[in-house]
């Protein structure tokens, strides 16, 4: 079995569009949440959202590549180019080496809706142009990035709701561990536009604390009233230890555990038992005990039921050890398909720079969160091993464990 290490990181999020800015924002406890009036005008119950600028790609990508890329693909291109820089590789590396891509993505709403609007109005599919099909498919991110870079290994998109990004890293880890690939670009991407989240808003799942956007996402807090949607992209380059050492790469950490489970229950109501199984499996895979985990990046999205359920699951396994816990969604909002990957990047930054980012807006615990050691202020500490949770609709659960790399 190969050991699997992280050799590249990239981030394009509402906290910043590069690793340095995001590190600083995490330490400062900065919120990336705004109120989008366009959503209100469009009929949303809540206009709260994370926001990122659309990157200017003219001059970076040719016309064909740009025509085929939807919004979240642009973000993924940006985070992946940063990850490649940190990994010390360029596109030439992909010509001579079989490198794969597995990204989490679970929608591409805007291109779909805009295409259908054109067909309805013009009664002529030709007028969609050539890029529409490549923007609308769920695999749009991987099909585009695999063409742009160009990649010759595993090439697929993983859709698992809000655990998509986490499972993409888990699956990449398994493929490298088993010797099927030496390097995989893993990650997650999430569109941010008024079409993407209307049906999620329809469930009354979003916070309506619009008078105080920075306080709206408050995971584990007693007075939380729902999540805040967000997006962007994150890239985590996984590589076999042998490959990384052969090319003298900088190693950020080692993926040592991946646990997954399905609740086998309600499509949107969480359970405690399902996440507990994923947590336990990740620890078993890593050969670690609960006491070995120095920090938990919780999935906690700021919904009443979800956070309570996760708090109980974490308490069941880690309650006796006072393991520091925070949800970076308090700052970013819920980055959905991207979240499992971005939260690995956030946690890697904390591990590298020796701090736990705060769970901002955690002012009063409820009965469940009172059982956890939730970190509400940035805390300087050593993290040698962290665990990151991601859960999604349909009861899909993923837990990843990553250890700091120490020269061995």
């Amino acid at each position: 079995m190969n050991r699997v290490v992280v050799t590249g990181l990239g981030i394009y999020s509402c906290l910043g569009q590069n690793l340095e800015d995001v590190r600083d924002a995490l330490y400062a406890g900065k919120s990336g949440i705004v109120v989008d009036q366009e959503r209100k005008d469009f009929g949303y119950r809540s206009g709260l959202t994370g926001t990122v600028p659309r990157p200017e790609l003219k001059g970076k990508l040719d016309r064909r590549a740009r025509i085929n890329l939807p919004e979240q693909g642009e973000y993924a291109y940006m985070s992946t180019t940063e990850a490649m820089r940190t990994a010390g590789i360029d596109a030439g590396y992909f010509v001579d080496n079989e490198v794969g891509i597995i990204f989490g993505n679970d929608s591409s709403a805007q291109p779909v809706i805009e295409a259908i609007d054109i067909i309805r109005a013009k009664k002529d599919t030709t007028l969609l142009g050539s890029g529409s099909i490549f923007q609308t498919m769920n695999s749009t991110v991987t099909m585009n990035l695999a063409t742009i870079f160009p990649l010759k290994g595993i090439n697929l998109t993983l859709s698992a709701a809000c655990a998509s990004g986490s499972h993409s890293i888990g699956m990449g880890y398994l493929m490298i561990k088993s010797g099927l690939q030496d390097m995989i670009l893993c990650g997650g991407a999430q569109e941010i536009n008024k079409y993407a989240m209307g049906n999620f808003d329809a469930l009354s799942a979003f916070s309506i604390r619009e008078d105080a956007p920075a306080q709206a996402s408050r995971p584990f807090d007693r007075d939380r009233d729902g999540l805040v949607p967000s997006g962007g992209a994150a890239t985590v380059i996984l590589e076999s230890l042998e490959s990384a050492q052969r090319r003298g790469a900088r190693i950020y950490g080692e993926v040592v555990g991946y646990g997954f489970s399905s609740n086998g229950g309600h499509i949107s109501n969480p359970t405690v038992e399902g996440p507990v199984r994923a947590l336990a499996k990740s620890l078993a895979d890593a050969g670690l005990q609960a006491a070995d985990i120095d920090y938990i990046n919780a999935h906690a999205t700021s919904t009443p039921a979800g956070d309570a359920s996760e708090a109980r699951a974490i308490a069941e396994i880690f309650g006796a050890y006072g393991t520091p816990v925070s949800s970076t969604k308090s700052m970013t909002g819920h980055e959905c398909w991207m979240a499992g990957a971005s939260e690995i990047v956030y946690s890697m930054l904390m591990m590298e720079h020796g701090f736990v980012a705060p769970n901002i807006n955690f002012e009063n615990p409820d009965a469940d969160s009172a059982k956890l050691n939730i970190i509400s202020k940035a805390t300087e500490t050593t993290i040698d091993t962290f665990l990151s949770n991601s859960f999604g609709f349909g009861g899909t659960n993923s837990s990843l464990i990553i250890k700091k790399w120490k020269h061995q």
Partner: protein
Amino acid sequence: MEAPVKTKAEVISTINEFLSEEFEVDIDTIQPDANLNTTLGLDSLDYIDLVVMTESNFGFKVKPEDFPGIKTFNDFYQYIFAKIGLLDD
């Protein structure tokens, strides 16, 4: 009120501008006898976008079978002139 009829020179100017902008080539490379495909660097997908641009700019329906006979920019101009009823000067 009908739109004023454009001259051939005006139509050519319109075509050259949208081709240059869309396919990101220097407008000076677009010459009547130059090869349309190689000058613009068109692949099979780009012809779909050429159809969209043509229909959007001139308001007539392009048939896929119209394009294979078009080799040069001048062929393209003549095709447009015929479709929009611009007769020889």
